[in-house]
Protein backbone atom coordinates (compact mmCIF):
# COMPACT_ATOMS: atom_id res chain seq x y z
CA UNK A 1 0.00 0.00 0.00
CA UNK A 2 1.20 3.50 -0.82
CA UNK A 3 2.36 5.47 2.22
CA UNK A 4 -0.23 8.11 3.21
CA UNK A 5 2.40 10.87 3.06
CA UNK A 6 2.87 10.26 -0.67
CA UNK A 7 -0.86 10.25 -1.29
CA UNK A 8 -1.21 13.56 0.57
CA UNK A 9 1.70 15.05 -1.39
CA UNK A 10 0.14 13.95 -4.69
CA UNK A 11 -3.20 15.54 -3.76
CA UNK A 12 -1.45 18.75 -2.68
CA UNK A 13 0.39 18.96 -6.03
CA UNK A 14 -2.81 18.24 -7.95
CA UNK A 15 -4.59 21.09 -6.13
CA UNK A 16 -1.73 23.48 -6.96
CA UNK A 17 -1.28 22.42 -10.59
CA UNK A 18 -4.78 21.52 -11.80
CA UNK A 19 -6.27 24.29 -13.96
CA UNK A 20 -9.57 23.98 -12.14
CA UNK A 21 -8.06 24.83 -8.75
CA UNK A 22 -4.51 26.33 -8.60
CA UNK A 23 -4.99 26.31 -4.86
CA UNK A 24 -1.80 26.46 -2.78
CA UNK A 25 -3.24 27.17 0.63
CA UNK A 26 -5.04 23.89 1.34
CA UNK A 27 -3.82 21.45 3.98
CA UNK A 28 -4.13 17.79 3.04
CA UNK A 29 -4.01 14.95 5.57
CA UNK A 30 -4.50 11.22 4.97
CA UNK A 31 -5.45 8.88 7.84
CA UNK A 32 -6.11 5.32 6.70
CA UNK A 33 -8.68 5.55 3.91
CA UNK A 34 -9.83 9.02 4.96
CA UNK A 35 -8.65 12.21 3.25
CA UNK A 36 -9.03 15.53 5.08
CA UNK A 37 -8.95 18.94 3.38
CA UNK A 38 -8.61 22.13 5.41
CA UNK A 39 -8.23 25.77 4.45
CA UNK A 40 -10.18 28.85 3.38
CA UNK A 41 -11.39 29.79 -0.10
CA UNK A 42 -13.45 32.55 -1.70
CA UNK A 43 -16.67 30.78 -2.64
CA UNK A 44 -18.65 27.54 -2.48
CA UNK A 45 -17.93 26.60 -6.10
CA UNK A 46 -14.15 26.66 -5.48
CA UNK A 47 -14.61 24.64 -2.31
CA UNK A 48 -16.39 21.90 -4.26
CA UNK A 49 -13.88 21.92 -7.13
CA UNK A 50 -11.08 21.33 -4.63
CA UNK A 51 -12.86 18.24 -3.30
CA UNK A 52 -13.38 16.98 -6.90
CA UNK A 53 -9.72 17.40 -7.84
CA UNK A 54 -8.56 15.84 -4.55
CA UNK A 55 -10.89 12.86 -5.03
CA UNK A 56 -9.56 12.25 -8.55
CA UNK A 57 -5.95 12.37 -7.34
CA UNK A 58 -6.69 9.86 -4.55
CA UNK A 59 -9.34 7.46 -5.84
CA UNK A 60 -10.73 5.11 -3.21
CA UNK A 61 -10.30 7.52 -0.30
CA UNK A 62 -13.23 9.10 1.53
CA UNK A 63 -12.92 12.88 1.14
CA UNK A 64 -13.77 15.04 4.16
CA UNK A 65 -14.12 18.58 2.88
CA UNK A 66 -13.43 20.75 5.93
CA UNK A 67 -12.55 23.81 3.84
CA UNK A 68 -14.44 26.93 4.84
CA UNK A 69 -15.61 29.77 2.63
CA UNK A 70 -14.18 33.14 3.69
CA UNK A 71 -17.01 35.42 4.58
CA UNK A 72 -15.61 38.85 3.73
CA UNK A 73 -16.71 41.08 6.58
CA UNK A 74 -17.15 44.82 6.32
CA UNK A 75 -13.87 46.66 6.85
CA UNK A 76 -13.50 48.23 10.24
CA UNK A 77 -11.22 48.60 13.23
CA UNK A 78 -8.48 50.73 11.69
CA UNK A 79 -5.09 50.51 13.32
CA UNK A 80 -3.10 53.58 14.28
CA UNK A 81 0.64 53.18 13.73
Amino acid at each position, binding site marked *: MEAPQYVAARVQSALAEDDRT*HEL*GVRVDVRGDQLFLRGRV*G*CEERRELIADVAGEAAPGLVVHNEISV*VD*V*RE*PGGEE*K*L
Partner: protein
Amino acid sequence: MSQLRIAAVGDVHLGEDLRGRYRSRLSGIEEKADVLLLAGDLTRHGTLEEGEVVAEEFRDLPVPVVAVLGNHDHHSDKPAEIATMLKDAGISVLHDDAVVLDVKGVRLGVVGGKGFGGGFAGKCASEFGEPEIKAFVNHTKRIADRWRVALKELQADRRVVLSHYSPVNDTLAGEPLEIYPFLGSYLLAEAVDSEGADLILHGHAHMGTEKGMTPGGIRVRNVALPVLGRAYGVYCLGEDGEDPDHC
Protein backbone atom coordinates in the same frame (compact mmCIF):
# COMPACT_ATOMS: atom_id res chain seq x y z
CA MET B 1 0.93 67.15 8.21
CA SER B 2 -2.38 65.28 7.95
CA GLN B 3 -2.62 61.69 8.94
CA LEU B 4 -2.96 59.18 6.14
CA ARG B 5 -5.31 56.23 6.19
CA ILE B 6 -3.95 53.38 4.11
CA ALA B 7 -6.43 50.64 3.11
CA ALA B 8 -4.81 47.41 1.98
CA VAL B 9 -5.71 43.89 0.94
CA GLY B 10 -4.00 41.09 -0.98
CA ASP B 11 -4.90 37.67 -2.35
CA VAL B 12 -8.39 38.55 -3.50
CA HIS B 13 -7.87 35.85 -6.18
CA LEU B 14 -10.69 37.12 -8.36
CA GLY B 15 -12.20 35.21 -11.23
CA GLU B 16 -15.43 35.11 -13.19
CA ASP B 17 -17.10 33.27 -10.27
CA LEU B 18 -16.46 36.20 -7.91
CA ARG B 19 -17.26 39.06 -10.33
CA GLY B 20 -18.97 41.97 -8.56
CA ARG B 21 -18.77 40.31 -5.15
CA TYR B 22 -15.72 42.20 -3.91
CA ARG B 23 -16.74 45.53 -5.44
CA SER B 24 -19.81 45.63 -3.22
CA ARG B 25 -17.49 45.73 -0.18
CA LEU B 26 -15.67 48.80 -1.49
CA SER B 27 -18.57 51.21 -1.31
CA GLY B 28 -17.89 54.01 1.16
CA ILE B 29 -14.14 53.36 1.13
CA GLU B 30 -13.49 57.09 0.80
CA GLU B 31 -14.92 57.58 4.30
CA LYS B 32 -12.57 55.03 5.78
CA ALA B 33 -9.35 55.48 3.80
CA ASP B 34 -7.37 57.85 1.58
CA VAL B 35 -5.76 55.23 -0.67
CA LEU B 36 -6.14 51.52 -1.45
CA LEU B 37 -3.11 49.28 -1.88
CA LEU B 38 -3.42 45.79 -3.44
CA ALA B 39 -0.76 43.29 -2.37
CA GLY B 40 -0.81 40.86 -5.31
CA ASP B 41 -2.51 37.56 -6.20
CA LEU B 42 -5.35 39.56 -7.64
CA THR B 43 -6.26 36.62 -9.90
CA ARG B 44 -6.26 32.87 -9.48
CA HIS B 45 -4.72 31.67 -12.76
CA GLY B 46 -3.22 34.90 -14.09
CA THR B 47 -5.33 34.86 -17.27
CA LEU B 48 -6.34 37.95 -19.23
CA GLU B 49 -10.01 37.17 -18.51
CA GLU B 50 -9.34 37.27 -14.79
CA GLY B 51 -7.22 40.41 -15.22
CA GLU B 52 -10.27 42.03 -16.79
CA VAL B 53 -12.41 41.08 -13.76
CA VAL B 54 -9.80 42.69 -11.47
CA ALA B 55 -9.72 45.87 -13.59
CA GLU B 56 -13.53 46.13 -13.46
CA GLU B 57 -13.65 45.46 -9.72
CA PHE B 58 -11.17 48.21 -8.82
CA ARG B 59 -11.74 50.85 -11.55
CA ASP B 60 -13.11 54.34 -10.83
CA LEU B 61 -12.89 54.17 -7.06
CA PRO B 62 -13.05 57.48 -5.18
CA VAL B 63 -9.54 56.85 -3.77
CA PRO B 64 -6.32 56.17 -5.72
CA VAL B 65 -5.40 52.49 -6.11
CA VAL B 66 -1.85 51.11 -6.24
CA ALA B 67 -1.16 47.42 -6.91
CA VAL B 68 1.61 44.86 -7.22
CA LEU B 69 1.15 41.46 -8.85
CA GLY B 70 1.60 38.09 -7.13
CA ASN B 71 2.78 34.63 -8.16
CA HIS B 72 -0.74 33.62 -9.27
CA ASP B 73 -0.85 36.65 -11.56
CA HIS B 74 2.29 35.27 -13.27
CA HIS B 75 0.98 31.73 -13.81
CA SER B 76 -0.22 32.24 -17.40
CA ASP B 77 2.92 34.21 -18.38
CA LYS B 78 0.87 37.37 -18.94
CA PRO B 79 1.97 39.69 -16.09
CA ALA B 80 2.82 42.61 -18.39
CA GLU B 81 -0.54 42.37 -20.17
CA ILE B 82 -2.41 42.22 -16.84
CA ALA B 83 -0.43 45.22 -15.56
CA THR B 84 -1.38 47.17 -18.69
CA MET B 85 -5.07 46.30 -18.22
CA LEU B 86 -4.94 47.57 -14.63
CA LYS B 87 -3.13 50.75 -15.67
CA ASP B 88 -5.79 51.35 -18.33
CA ALA B 89 -8.33 51.14 -15.50
CA GLY B 90 -6.49 53.91 -13.64
CA ILE B 91 -4.62 51.65 -11.19
CA SER B 92 -0.90 52.24 -10.61
CA VAL B 93 1.07 49.00 -10.86
CA LEU B 94 4.50 48.81 -9.24
CA HIS B 95 7.24 46.64 -10.68
CA ASP B 96 10.18 47.23 -8.34
CA ASP B 97 9.73 50.97 -8.65
CA ALA B 98 7.91 53.82 -6.93
CA VAL B 99 4.89 56.04 -7.26
CA VAL B 100 4.29 59.26 -5.34
CA LEU B 101 0.68 60.30 -4.73
CA ASP B 102 -0.49 63.64 -3.44
CA VAL B 103 -3.00 62.75 -0.72
CA LYS B 104 -4.52 65.68 1.19
CA GLY B 105 -1.34 67.66 0.51
CA VAL B 106 0.88 64.86 1.85
CA ARG B 107 3.27 63.16 -0.56
CA LEU B 108 2.72 59.43 -0.08
CA GLY B 109 5.49 57.36 -1.66
CA VAL B 110 4.78 53.71 -2.38
CA VAL B 111 7.67 51.45 -3.38
CA GLY B 112 7.50 47.78 -4.21
CA GLY B 113 6.74 44.86 -6.45
CA LYS B 114 6.09 41.16 -6.30
CA GLY B 115 9.10 40.33 -4.11
CA PHE B 116 10.21 36.68 -3.96
CA GLY B 117 11.30 33.84 -1.67
CA GLY B 118 14.52 32.40 -0.33
CA GLY B 119 13.91 32.21 3.40
CA PHE B 120 14.96 34.08 6.47
CA ALA B 121 18.33 34.91 7.99
CA GLY B 122 20.20 31.81 9.11
CA LYS B 123 17.67 29.52 7.43
CA CYS B 124 17.83 30.55 3.83
CA ALA B 125 19.15 29.58 0.43
CA SER B 126 22.35 31.19 -0.84
CA GLU B 127 23.86 31.81 -4.25
CA PHE B 128 25.84 28.58 -4.31
CA GLY B 129 25.83 25.34 -6.28
CA GLU B 130 23.57 24.58 -9.22
CA PRO B 131 22.48 27.34 -11.60
CA GLU B 132 18.82 26.75 -10.65
CA ILE B 133 19.50 27.61 -6.99
CA LYS B 134 21.65 30.58 -7.96
CA ALA B 135 18.92 31.89 -10.27
CA PHE B 136 16.32 31.56 -7.50
CA VAL B 137 18.39 33.49 -4.96
CA ASN B 138 19.61 36.00 -7.53
CA HIS B 139 16.02 36.88 -8.49
CA THR B 140 15.32 37.95 -4.90
CA LYS B 141 18.62 39.82 -4.61
CA ARG B 142 17.96 41.85 -7.73
CA ILE B 143 14.49 42.75 -6.50
CA ALA B 144 15.83 43.82 -3.09
CA ASP B 145 18.48 45.95 -4.79
CA ARG B 146 15.88 47.70 -6.95
CA TRP B 147 13.76 48.45 -3.87
CA ARG B 148 16.80 49.87 -2.12
CA VAL B 149 17.49 52.23 -5.02
CA ALA B 150 13.80 53.21 -5.34
CA LEU B 151 13.65 54.00 -1.61
CA LYS B 152 16.89 55.95 -1.71
CA GLU B 153 15.61 58.13 -4.53
CA LEU B 154 12.09 58.52 -3.15
CA GLN B 155 11.05 62.09 -2.35
CA ALA B 156 8.00 61.73 -0.11
CA ASP B 157 6.61 62.63 3.32
CA ARG B 158 5.41 59.09 4.09
CA ARG B 159 6.93 55.88 2.77
CA VAL B 160 5.08 52.60 2.36
CA VAL B 161 6.48 49.40 0.84
CA LEU B 162 4.01 47.15 -0.98
CA SER B 163 4.99 43.53 -1.68
CA HIS B 164 3.39 40.19 -2.39
CA TYR B 165 5.99 37.97 -0.70
CA SER B 166 6.81 38.53 2.97
CA PRO B 167 9.93 40.34 4.19
CA VAL B 168 9.75 38.76 7.68
CA ASN B 169 8.77 35.47 9.26
CA ASP B 170 6.61 37.00 12.06
CA THR B 171 3.66 37.34 9.72
CA LEU B 172 4.00 33.73 8.52
CA ALA B 173 3.06 32.24 11.91
CA GLY B 174 0.41 29.64 11.15
CA GLU B 175 2.03 28.46 7.93
CA PRO B 176 4.04 25.19 7.94
CA LEU B 177 7.69 26.01 8.77
CA GLU B 178 8.85 23.84 5.86
CA ILE B 179 7.45 26.26 3.26
CA TYR B 180 8.80 29.51 4.76
CA PRO B 181 11.52 29.78 2.06
CA PHE B 182 8.75 29.92 -0.56
CA LEU B 183 6.82 32.59 1.31
CA GLY B 184 9.39 35.34 1.51
CA SER B 185 12.92 36.54 2.06
CA TYR B 186 14.75 38.55 4.70
CA LEU B 187 16.63 40.31 1.86
CA LEU B 188 13.47 42.37 1.26
CA ALA B 189 13.37 43.51 4.91
CA GLU B 190 17.09 44.22 4.90
CA ALA B 191 16.74 46.51 1.88
CA VAL B 192 13.83 48.41 3.44
CA ASP B 193 15.53 48.67 6.85
CA SER B 194 18.61 50.18 5.21
CA GLU B 195 16.65 53.04 3.60
CA GLY B 196 13.72 53.36 5.99
CA ALA B 197 9.94 53.24 5.57
CA ASP B 198 6.86 53.78 7.72
CA LEU B 199 5.09 50.51 6.92
CA ILE B 200 5.47 47.33 4.84
CA LEU B 201 2.40 45.54 3.49
CA HIS B 202 2.39 42.07 1.96
CA GLY B 203 0.14 39.10 1.17
CA HIS B 204 0.83 35.55 -0.12
CA ALA B 205 0.75 33.75 3.27
CA HIS B 206 -2.94 32.87 3.48
CA MET B 207 -2.54 30.98 6.75
CA GLY B 208 -0.20 33.52 8.34
CA THR B 209 -0.72 36.30 10.88
CA GLU B 210 -1.51 39.98 10.37
CA LYS B 211 1.12 41.72 12.49
CA GLY B 212 4.91 41.64 12.53
CA MET B 213 8.03 43.83 12.49
CA THR B 214 11.37 43.97 10.68
CA PRO B 215 14.65 43.63 12.62
CA GLY B 216 14.99 47.42 12.17
CA GLY B 217 11.58 48.05 13.79
CA ILE B 218 9.43 48.80 10.72
CA ARG B 219 5.89 47.56 11.12
CA VAL B 220 4.85 44.75 8.75
CA ARG B 221 1.25 43.78 8.03
CA ASN B 222 0.12 40.63 6.20
CA VAL B 223 -3.04 41.78 4.44
CA ALA B 224 -3.91 38.51 2.65
CA LEU B 225 -7.71 38.41 2.53
CA PRO B 226 -8.01 35.04 4.34
CA VAL B 227 -5.82 36.45 7.14
CA LEU B 228 -7.78 39.71 7.50
CA GLY B 229 -11.22 38.14 7.11
CA ARG B 230 -12.46 41.64 6.26
CA ALA B 231 -12.59 43.46 2.94
CA TYR B 232 -9.41 45.43 3.71
CA GLY B 233 -7.30 46.56 6.64
CA VAL B 234 -6.89 50.27 7.40
CA TYR B 235 -3.60 51.56 8.81
CA CYS B 236 -3.17 55.17 9.91
CA LEU B 237 0.17 56.89 9.56
CA GLY B 238 0.81 60.08 11.46
CA GLU B 239 2.23 61.62 14.58
CA ASP B 240 0.50 61.15 17.92
CA GLY B 241 -1.84 63.99 18.70
CA GLU B 242 -1.85 65.20 15.13
CA ASP B 243 -5.31 65.63 13.68
CA PRO B 244 -6.71 63.40 16.45
CA ASP B 245 -10.29 63.11 15.24
CA HIS B 246 -9.32 62.00 11.80
CA CYS B 247 -7.94 58.52 12.46
